């Protein structure tokens, strides 16, 4: 009896093993499916949690226009996102990309948020040969080893702050800088590039400090800062808690620099600081313009219910979506290899700017200066022609 049962089980399992892989059958695709994971919980939720809506709204907008034209099938196909929550953990991202990789109807991956989670995700893309457009991931760690199946959209982290230097070079009036950096992958790279840039342009960095993410007591750093007396204080931290804490304590200490730069300034930072936030300079992945892309972007933001200043990373999302759309249209097929070839070689314009991929896999889009004016985030680019111009505090 017992033996019979185990033999039966064994046979059954063998049967499943043999038949299992052949159970998939192909048919003409009815839609273009894009797979992605986003941190809908965990520590990155506050930064990217709303981008699920953004993606769906973008797909909605494109679908209202009939979808994306695919030459191979001679018709426009609607677009659809399949999004999982990676809970800000790489092992989850990897698990869900593996899950999506088994779904033949998914022809495209969007990367997750942040470099180290993307790292886990790109291995899945590479293994299953599925094109992946990375989003918020531009740290060197990701590009050390060649991987054909992933491309970025952003310039390297080191170059993100490059558009700020011309402001001070042009306007003058400030000479010395201090940088306060939260100890994370992306932040340190950005500040390193910025400091090199400053030195090249004749500015002086008088105080530079890297502090661990959970830091709450900034008083010792501010004591040093007050001694160094910089004209400009730069704070680069992925976590708003760090930025808010530092600025509130600097205010308590009565130190008033001529200019404050905040790398990741969002609506919640502005709200928490109130009038003190006025004229804080920052960076966003958006600048004012009047291309069709600009209109589309503002439209999906309107539908999602927030502005580009509230979630500064939203611009990157839009670029990534647009590049996916352009690549599919250009390739004229849903064949994964051909889409990937197109992604590498495609030179297009997004929001009127050149977008291409470097041989390492970086993108070509960076961040633009903007400033808090009248309690709102406004774009101050280009420097001389912008609607709003840059102010010192």
């Amino acid at each position: 009896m017992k033996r019979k049962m185990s033999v039966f089980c064994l046979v059954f399992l063998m049967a499943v093993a043999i038949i299992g892989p052949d159970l998939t059958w192909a048919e003409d695709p009815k839609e273009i499916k894009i797979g992605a994971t986003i941190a809908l919980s965990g520590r990155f939720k506050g930064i990217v949690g709303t981008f699920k809506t953004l993606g769906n709204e973008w797909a909605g907008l494109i679908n209202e226009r009939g979808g994306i034209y695919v030459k191979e099938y001679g018709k426009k196909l609607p677009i659809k996102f399949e999004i999982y929550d990676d809970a800000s953990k790489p092992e989850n991202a990897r698990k869900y990309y593996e899950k999506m990789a088994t779904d033949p109807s998914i022809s495209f991956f969007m990367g997750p948020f942040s470099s180290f989670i993307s790292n886990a995700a790109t291995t899945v893309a590479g293994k299953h040969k599925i094109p992946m457009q990375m989003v918020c991931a531009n740290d060197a760690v990701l590009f050390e080893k060649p991987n054909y199946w992933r491309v970025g959209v952003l310039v390297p982290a080191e170059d993100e702050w490059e558009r700020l230097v011309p402001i001070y070079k042009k306007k003058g009036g400030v000479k010395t800088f201090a940088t306060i950096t939260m100890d994370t992958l992306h932040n340190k790279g950005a500040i390193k590039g910025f400091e090199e840039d400053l030195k090249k342009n004749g500015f002086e960095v008088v105080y530079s400090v890297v502090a661990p993410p959970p830091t709450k007591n900034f008083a010792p750093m501010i004591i040093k800062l007050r001694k160094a007396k910089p004209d400009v204080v730069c704070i680069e931290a992925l976590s708003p808690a760090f930025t808010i804490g530092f600025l509130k304590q600097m205010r308590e200490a009565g130190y008033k620099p001529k200019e404050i730069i905040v790398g990741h300034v969002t609506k919640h930072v502005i709200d928490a600081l109130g009038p003190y936030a006025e004229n804080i300079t920052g960076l966003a992945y958006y600048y004012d313009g009047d291309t069709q892309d600009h209109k589309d972007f503002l439209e999906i933001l309107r539908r999602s219910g927030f502005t580009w200043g509230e979630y500064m990373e939203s611009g990157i999302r839009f670029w990534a979506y647009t590049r996916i759309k352009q690549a599919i249209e250009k390739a004229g097929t849903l064949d994964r290899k051909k889409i990937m070839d197109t992604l590498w070689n495609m030179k297009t314009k997004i929001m009127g700017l050149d977008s291409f991929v470097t041989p390492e896999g970086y993108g070509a889009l960076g961040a633009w200066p903007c400033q808090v004016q009248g309690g709102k985030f406004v774009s101050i680019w280009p420097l001389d022609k912008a609607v709003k111009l840059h102010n010192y505090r």
Partner: protein
Amino acid sequence: MNRIILGIVLLFLLIFPVFNLPYLNTFLIILFMYILLAESYDILGGYTGYINMGHIAFFGIGAYTFGLLWNTGLSLYLSFLAGTLAAVVFAILISFPLFRLQGAYFSLAAFALVKLMEHLTLNLSSITHGSDGLKVLEGNRMIPMYYLSLLLVVAVVVVSFLITRSRFGLAMASVREEEEIAFDFGVPVQRIKTTAMVISASFAGLMGSFYTWYTIFINPSMVFGTEMALMPIAMAMLGGSGVIIGPVIGAVFLLIVEETLWTRFAYLHTAAYGLVILLVGLFMPGGLVRLRPVRRFLIRVGLFKEL
């Protein structure tokens, strides 16, 4: 009966990769990881009663040692060995001061050690690369990963089983029940506790090494994170601390709940997950396996082995 069930489960797991279901494969690998962490936690926490909230420190130390050594070109097996050894050495070092503490003091001091390790790995960036994290060679090794993690889980369950059958296991349980009296009856309490911690640490260290191998990239908050530290403990307690099958059931139950919730609901899954943990703590203080029907079933199939 129990042998047949175990045999079938094992056989199924053994031939599983043949089905070529990468998602379930990765799910199982993570499941195995948590089973191992919960089960190895329970060797100390369940049998000697010292709730070691710092268990994940061994995991992290294994992970970093493996990554650093493997990157220098050491062979894979030696790196695994080194990761395990590092955790064991750490366990021996901390066991003497730590076991002078009792109850909640022990748990929290152990937890402080995890945070200390997190900060140390963050600060000693010349060695550990700090917040940049540590990256190791990547490669397509899903199948070996699967089998290795399966092997480790089987190993830890077998070791737990052997412990419950041995004098050593008895001594551990006596330490849990009445430490002073155990000492009066000649049980070398300190040695028992240290040995238990070393066994528990060696598995966690090995799993840490495996984790680095698996995720390719680690950073301090990934391996020493608060949630990472608490989950295996919650799993063990939820399943039933001090019963071999307890942590296994706890880990399987919690991960399946998590997975179902997370793939079905975009929001509030963590809340539901928390609610499950809360309810189990409230209504099943001994864990799932000590629930009467579950317990009766497990005893019938001979899988309820308690110490």
